[in-house]
């Protein structure tokens, strides 16, 4: 068996293979649903209804997509420059911690001043958290995959320490949770009385800004050059180390916005279950979008729909909601195969 590069993939194949990837994912999921003793069709109808069958369901999917857009963007930016940031989870919590520290009354400012201040500070925290692994990579050659992964575990313990210590809510009845942020530090709801908040709008705008940065700025060009071939980029006079550090700052900042938006827009306070793995799901979101920032919005909606739909489905059918995690992981693997098939032809000889 041998792989043969295709020079110019045709439009039908670039569309066909990703659709095939999603189909394979559903075939795998069907097998698991049958293993659970249920009918795949009935279950998928329940999932679809749970994700988009009512106004409530749709808004819930948009709400769930919000942090995924941020973490998806964080991963897309980093992976484009081949900076393997697997630590979006930790950076998310860094943003959430800053939101709680600044948002619980320490700064008595009106909302139009306080919210941007908190958002920028949260981004700084996330950026600084990824700066460490990025510098270790550029200065010492330490693989950032392992350092960012390990920092996820350090960060969640750090948050746990804060929630049982200085950030503990005295009225929390012993639960490890922070105080609620003040009204001026809350992102407003988009529709009164519903959970969807302005974080979603910020996420969409961020996706557009990142798209512009990647497509239209020198930094974007440099990031792609470094990701494509670091040696060639260095030869062409691009300061590879600096580009990687800038990428890290941007990526960490974006992931931290997920934490800011979840606390300020949705939950109102910080708990240890703020993120059910949004950082890791962000990797899938970014890969499904082929690292395209605008595509991230759509793949985040797809992934959010699966999670929200599966949650709703598991309440009525006897299929565990973990089916969503399996589907998302399968989609990641089938998608990378699909992308390869658009670029290579498999030849037997």
């Amino acid at each position, binding site marked *: 068996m041998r792989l043969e590069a295709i020079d110019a993939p045709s439009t039908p194949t670039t569309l066909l293979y990703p659709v095939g990837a999603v189909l394979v994912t559903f075939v795998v999921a069907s097998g698991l649903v049958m293993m659970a003793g249920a009918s795949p069709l009935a279950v998928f109808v329940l999932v679809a209804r749970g994700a988009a069958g009512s106004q409530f369901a749709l808004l819930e999917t948009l709400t769930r997509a919000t942090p995924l857009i941020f973490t998806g963007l964080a991963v897309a930016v980093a992976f484009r420059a081949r900076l393997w940031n697997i630590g979006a989870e930790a950076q998310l919590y860094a943003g959430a911690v800053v939101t709680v520290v600044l948002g619980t009354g320490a700064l008595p400012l009106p909302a139009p001043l306080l919210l941007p201040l908190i958002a920028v500070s949260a981004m700084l925290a996330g950026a600084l958290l990824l700066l460490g692994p990025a510098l*270790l990579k550029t200065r010492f050659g330490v693989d950032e*995959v392992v350092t960012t*992964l390990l920092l996820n*575990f*350090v960060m969640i*313990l*750090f948050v746990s*320490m804060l929630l049982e210590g200085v950030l503990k809510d005295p009225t929390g009845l012993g639960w490890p949770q922070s105080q609620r942020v003040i009204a001026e530090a809350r992102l407003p709801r988009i529709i009164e009385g519903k959970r969807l908040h302005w974080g979603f709008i910020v996420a969409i705008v961020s996706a557009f800004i990142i798209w512009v940065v990647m497509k239209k700025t020198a930094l974007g060009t440099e990031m792609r050059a470094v990701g494509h071939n670091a040696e060639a980029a260095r030869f062409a006079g691009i300061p590879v180390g600096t580009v990687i550090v800038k990428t890290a700052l941007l990526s960490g900042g974006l992931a931290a916005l997920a934490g800011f938006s979840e606390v300020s827009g949705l939950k109102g306070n910080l708990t240890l279950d703020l993120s059910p793995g949004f950082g890791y799901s962000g990797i*899938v979101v970014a890969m499904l979008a082929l690292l395209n920032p605008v595509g991230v919005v759509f793949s985040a909606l797809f992934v959010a729909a699966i999670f929200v739909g599966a949650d709703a489905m598991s309440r009525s059918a006897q299929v565990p909601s973990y089916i969503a995690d*399996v589907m998302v992981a399968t989609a990641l693997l089938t998608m990378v195969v699909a992308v390869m098939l658009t670029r290579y032809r498999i030849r037997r000889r």
Partner: protein
Amino acid sequence: MMEAFEIFLSASFWVAAIRIASPLIFATMGELVCERAGVLNLGIEGIMVSGAFAGWLAVYLGADLWTGVAVAALTGMAFGLLHAALTVPLGLSQHVVGIGITLLATSLTYFTYRIVLPEVTSPPKIAAFQPLKIPVLSDIPVIGPALFNQTPLTYLAFATVAIVAWVLARTPLGLAIRAAGENPSAVEAQGISVTGIRVGAVMAGSGLMAVGGAFLTMSAFDSFFFEMVNGRGWICIALVVFGSWRPGKALVGAILFAAFDAYQIRLQQIAGDVVPYQVFLMMPYLLSIAALVLVARRATYPRALMIPYRKGER
């Protein structure tokens, strides 16, 4: 202060250290075999989860303990085959596929757990491996109980190091594995398939990772908990780098690491009032990062690590 030092002299401390080291030894050897063949296996964390559950489940459903170990190994090898199929002949990104395998193995495990045990509130227990005292040797003070009064799986862990070291250093297969990770076209020139060697190494390595996971549910504890692997896989990746891709050095690294881990657990009991317990729990992860930084300057990665091999392409 004396208390903090006296810990090192107690036999129970070293017994715990070797017990904590055992799953790390299996998984580190597994990762080492993959990487020596040129494949970074980031599926390790999820494969350990799947092995922990599969081995435990087999025993829970009535199999004997060694069958459970075999089931765990086979489960790991199945995920290894998937990883290898995507990264070796297809040459896909080892980073992305590895993370994907970890997500898939973990979620499939949790899904299966919920299917098999829909109604349980506390995880059921099995009759796990018991310590097997080796006569005479176990009577040596301190190291006797630490090394010779452990469960059979711990002995297997040490045997695995010896076998991996011997195979890699002394056999034609080991030479082919090492060459596949350093200079794959030389392997092909010998008429040996690089693809075959790499797929085999990833499968074997993944089997070892899964047995490492199974140690947790079948020897260290006697039931399966979600998140029980808790980053051990990532720590093993750091241990491989720390051990310069050599089985002996990696073994020393795993034991040092485990001793540190056992020490922080005991230190918590002494200093727990002054320092929050989370600080102690963070230390193993921070230590792993520190170890990576320490060896980074002189780390010599297998030269073909993470580079897909395509026939005729250079």
